[in-house]
Each structure stands twice: as C-alpha cells, then as structure tokens.
C-alpha cells in the first residue's frame, strides 16, 4: 500500500513533467531535434582523415627524371598537385591564401647530378600552422620518395645485370574492425555519446531550478511527495526523450554516415539508456544544487562537454595521458559508452564481453542519482524572505 502510494506519486510527477515538456516548444526542439541536427552538422565536419592535401610543384630542372618524380606525387589520392610555380614567392603567396599546404621544390641539375652518380636533394616546403596536416603530408611525401628511390635502385641493379632483387621484409598490414581506417567510424559513435551527454544533462538541469524559480517548489515541498519520488518522476520523461535521441542518432549514423552496426541494436539502446540515466541524474543534481536555471545550465554544459570530449577517449587516446588524468577518466561516463558503442557497432561484440563498462555505467548512474536525491532539499532555503 505504502509503496503503491509512492509509485502513484512518482507517476503523477512524471505525468506533470511530460505535460510541461510537451508545451514548451523550445525545450522540445532542444531535446528532440537538436541531437539529430548536431550529428548531421558535425558528422560531416569532424574528420581527422588527411586527404587531398593541396600542393604545388616548383620544378627548376624540367627533366625526364623530375617529371617522373612529380608524376608519382600526382598518383595518390592523399595529395593533389594544384599546379606548377616558378618561384618561392609564388609558393609563399599560395600558402598565405591557404590554396596549398605543401610545395615540392626540385633544384636545377637534378637529373644531371643523379646521372653523375651523386646523391640529389629535393625540398619539401610545408605549412606548419596546421601541424596535423603538415605532419601527415610530410609522411605521404616521404613514402612516395622512398618508393621512387627503390624503383630507381631496382632499375640500376637491373641495368648492372641483377634480376628480380628480392625484398627482405615486406609489410602486409591488415586492419581489423575499420578496414578503411575511416575516421568517421570512430568519430560518429564518439559524437553520438558527446551529444547525448550534453543534451540529456542540459534539459534535466532545468527541472528543479525551474520549480524553485517559479515558486512551485514551495507548494511541492508541502505535499507528501518525497525527494526521491520527485527525482525519479522527473527522470522518467527525460529518459523517454533520451531513448528517442539514441534511436535517432544511431539511425542517422547507420544510414547517412554508413557507420556499420554489427552487433545488436537493442543492446546498444539499452546501454545508452543506462548512460542517460547517469547523465540526466547529473543534470538533476546540478539543478537541485544551484536552484537557479542560468547556473544549472552552465554547470551542466561544463561538466558534460569538455570531459566527454577530451577525457573520454573520443579523440585523444586515454593511454597517452598522464596517469593522474587517466585515473580521472574513470569518472567520465562517456568513456564507457564509447567503448560499448564501438564494441557493439564496429566489432559486433555482445554486451556480455563488455560487462565491466556496464558495471561502471551503473555505478555512475546510481551514485549520481543518490547524490541528486541527497542534494534535493525538500525545505525552503535558510534566508529571510
């Protein structure tokens, strides 16, 4: 009987909250439309694949050999030769306007020196202001030049009568789970987690502070509704919204961005729900603690956005972080969901193998939920009014 009453109150709060959300077009848009929109926007924008690096060629030699080298540079999808220039100042200008990120300079006498048996130098000029692109582009260029050298060497040997020289070691790489090494396959899952974390905490962070600001909390606390009933009742509609967001973002990832979904969709949704229980409770906790909407929203942004982005292993590998920071990442629920989504979607692993992540997510959700119930005061603040 007593627990029946309690359940009745939880459902009453949930029903009331749902009515309020339904009538609030802004928060409805934020909670239902924003996640899909953000995935579309950032899914296309966020890529760490360096492809089609634009470059120019300054060929002072204009010989057969130099043209062959330039040819090699044009044969890869990673580099695009935009054109030939005839001076360093032109390279400078193109780089300033960001038309090119790299230039290959072949000195005069390139072929002549090679033929006379001397070693020759070519110069690579790169735009270091974008360090990632520069590093990757230099890597591509070095690989091309190495191959070019190898080719020349083999021809030399052939000319001197040695046929079919063998390669002592040949690397054959096979990449598992993401054979194309496409960054979207780990960007999109990470992005989904990031967006779910932010949006769920954000919309939940308004609930208690809004009641305080509108004065309705003063009536609520005189009713028999208990703190935990209020928190649970308020969480229910937000979990349903979260469920919708999970389904929407995963569907977009699958159909629009071709992120594979090898494992079970249901398992994916269930673990995401567990994650949302934690992040939504975090929003409620901040809302209960600050009692002011402006503060609770900002706090929700701060505690979800940066940690989920930086400390979750989304972009930056956790294993390369200092040990103290690595320890902190255990407090970031996004870390667990990213592992789970990658495992289920990319590797087709069943959740049974990822139980550790699930346990951590459950612990996080329970701790934050308990914290928000504890922090939610069913009393008026101690101040004159």
């Amino acid at each position: 009987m007593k627990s029946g009453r309690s359940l009745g109150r939880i459902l009453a709060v949930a029903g009331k909250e749902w009515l309020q959300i339904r009538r609030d077009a802004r928060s409805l848009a934020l909670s239902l439309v924003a996640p899909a929109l953000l995935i579309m926007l950032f899914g296309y924008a966020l890529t760490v694949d360096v492809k089609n690096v634009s470059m120019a060629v300054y060929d002072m030699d204009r010989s057969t050999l130099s043209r062959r080298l330039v040819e090699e540079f044009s044969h890869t999808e990673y580099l695009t030769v935009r054109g030939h220039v005839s001076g360093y100042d032109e390279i400078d200008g193109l780089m300033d306007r960001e038309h090119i990120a790299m230039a290959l300079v072949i000195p005069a006498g390139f072929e002549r020196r090679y033929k006379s048996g001397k070693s020759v130098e070519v110069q690579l000029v790169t735009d270091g202001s974008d360090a990632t692109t520069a590093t990757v582009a230099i890597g591509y260029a070095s690989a091309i030049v190495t191959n070019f050298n190898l080719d020349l060497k083999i021809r030399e040997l052939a000319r001197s009568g040695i046929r079919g020289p063998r390669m002592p070691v040949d690397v054959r790489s096979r990449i598992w789970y993401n054979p194309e090494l496409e960054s979207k396959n780990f960007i999109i899952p990470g992005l989904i987690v990031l967006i779910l974390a932010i949006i769920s905490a954000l919309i939940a962070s308004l609930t208690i502070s809004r009641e305080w600001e509108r004065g309705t909390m003063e009536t609520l606390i005189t009713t028999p509704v208990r703190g935990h009933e209020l928190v649970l009742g308020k969480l229910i509609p937000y979990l349903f919204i979260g469920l919708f967001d999970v389904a929407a973002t995963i569907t977009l990832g699958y159909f629009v961005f071709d992120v594979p979904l090898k494992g079970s969709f249901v398992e994916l949704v269930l673990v995401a729900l567990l994650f949302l229980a934690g992040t939504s409770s975090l929003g409620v906790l901040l809302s209960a603690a600050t009692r002011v909407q402006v503060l609770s929203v900002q706090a929700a942004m701060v505690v979800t956005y940066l940690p989920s982005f930086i400390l979750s292993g989304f972009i930056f590998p956790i294993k390369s972080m200092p040990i103290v920071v690595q320890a902190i990442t255990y407090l970031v629920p996004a870390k667990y969901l990213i592992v789970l989504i990658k495992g289920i979607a990319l590797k087709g692993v069943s959740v049974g193998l990822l139980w550790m992540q699930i346990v951590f997510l459950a612990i996080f959700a329970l701790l934050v939920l308990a914290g928000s119930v504890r922090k939610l005061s069913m009393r008026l603040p101690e101040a004159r009014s």
Partner: protein
Amino acid sequence: MNGNTVEVRGLTKRFGDFYAVNDIGFAVRAGEIFGFLGPNGAGKSTTIRMLCGILAPTAGEGSVAGFNIMTEQEGIKSAIGYMSQRFSLYDDLTVRENLEFFGSVYGLEGARLRERIAYVMKMADIGRRGDAMVRGLPGGVKQRLALGGAILHDPPVLFLDEPTSGVDPIMRRTFWEIIYDFSRNGKTIFVTTHYMDEAEHCDRMALIIAGKIIALDSPAALKAALPYSVWSLRAERFIEVFEEVAAFPFIDEAAIFGSDIHIMCKKDLPLKRELSRALRERGVSGFRIEEVDATLEDVFVSHARRLGV
C-alpha cells in the same frame, strides 16, 4: 492529543543574527479559525512555514495534527493543506491538470479524485475554466484555484498564508465564505493576514510584532481587555487638528482612522468635556466627539505603542 490541532512552545527561527520568530508559543483548538495578525515582516510566514514542515525551526517544540514539528514533517505534510503567499501552482498547466496533479500527489485516484476536483471547482467557482491555461487567468481566479488546491485532499488542517493579499474586497468576502464553510465541516484553519477587518472573522487570534506574540485571544476579548476608552473625533481640517490633539497630555493615543481621529484615553476620563474645552481654547469649532467601539486596529496600535514599535 488534547483537542489542540496545533501546539508549539518556544518556537524560534533565527536567520544569521536576525530573529524572524522569537520564542513564541500558542495552541490552536480543533475546528477553530485561528488568525495570525501582524505587519509585513513580523514573522507570520516564517511561523506558518515552520508549522508546515518546510522550514526547520532553530529551536522549539510542538505538534501539528498530532505530528512532531521537529521530527515528523512527512506526517504533517499528509495532514495539511497549504496555500503560500506567492501564487505557486503551475501556470503552464490547465486548471484541471493542476488539480489532477496535486490530487494524485496526495494519493487521490479514480472516482474519488474526480469527485474532489468537481467539488473544488464548484466551491471555488472555476468550473467553466477547467481547461484554461493557468497563465492567462485573472489574479482572483488564480487565488481561488490555489485555495482549491490546498483543500483538494480534504485535510483536517489548513494553513493559509495571506490568502487575500491583492484580492479585491468582494472576492475577499467570497474567500471568507469558503473558509467559514470549511470550518463548519470541523476543519482547523490557521490564517495569516495584515488586514485588521479580516482578523475579526477569526475565532481567536494572535497579534505578532517583530517575531513576538504580544496578545492572543478572541477578537472580542482582545478589545474588551483594552485599558482605554476609544473616541472618534470628527473635525474640518482634521490633519491640523490631529497634530494639536496628539499633544494633549490627557490623551494616551491618537491616530488617524479614515477621515476621523481615533483617540484613546483612560477609561474613567470624561473625555468629551475635556477635549471640547481644550479644542475651543484653541479656536477649533465645528467638531463632533463620540465614544466608539474599539476595533482590532485600536488594540493593535495600543500594543505596538506600548512596546515602542
């Protein structure tokens, strides 16, 4: 229980070094309309909030509806209805949705919930506004809805914090009819107000100033206990006359009361004769003096002056 619905001793609330409520004690009998009369900031709301279990007392003991105010707030919450000073229902829900929500929170369901909502809507005369969004309702209707929300679950005790503040006089009468009706059904009502005339509706009342109860009795007894006789002086240019009169040594208290001057003096003083002579000496004519019944305001003023506030 001993027939008292509310009972407190030594109730105190301190905010920093400010005593909002300072060591008060009183008892409210079951079925009584008990008034708390005092100016703004006297500690009325603070007291009511402590009784409702939503503000922790600094010190004191007592009970509401048989529940200890220090330890059994949850029990109190099921037994009371509370209407706060500031309107505090959901303005983005309709009238009916608000009532349904609060009814469910109090454990009403099904036929019983529908029956109570129908009763409250009829009582507060908001039936035809059932599907209107609360946000757009006029102040008086909101106020009646708030009262309706407080009595929805038929609580034995009702706490009303300035229920008629900002309500026009006609609406105030309607309000008091609802309160009387509630009282006739054997419920206890604890109401705060700063309207003196409203306090006359109470069975008993406490005067509260600066966190202290300075007098507590029925309105009639409070007025009878006044150690003064009260006179009304009517004169032209009464503001100037008032200044003269206030300085007369045989007058204990003079106050402007509408367009009259209310005068308090010792009960055995032949005031009419004394005052007429004194006024004529100062060339004032065309005045009328008559003895009147003391009002609660006179009682309040006399107590306030005695305490020097």
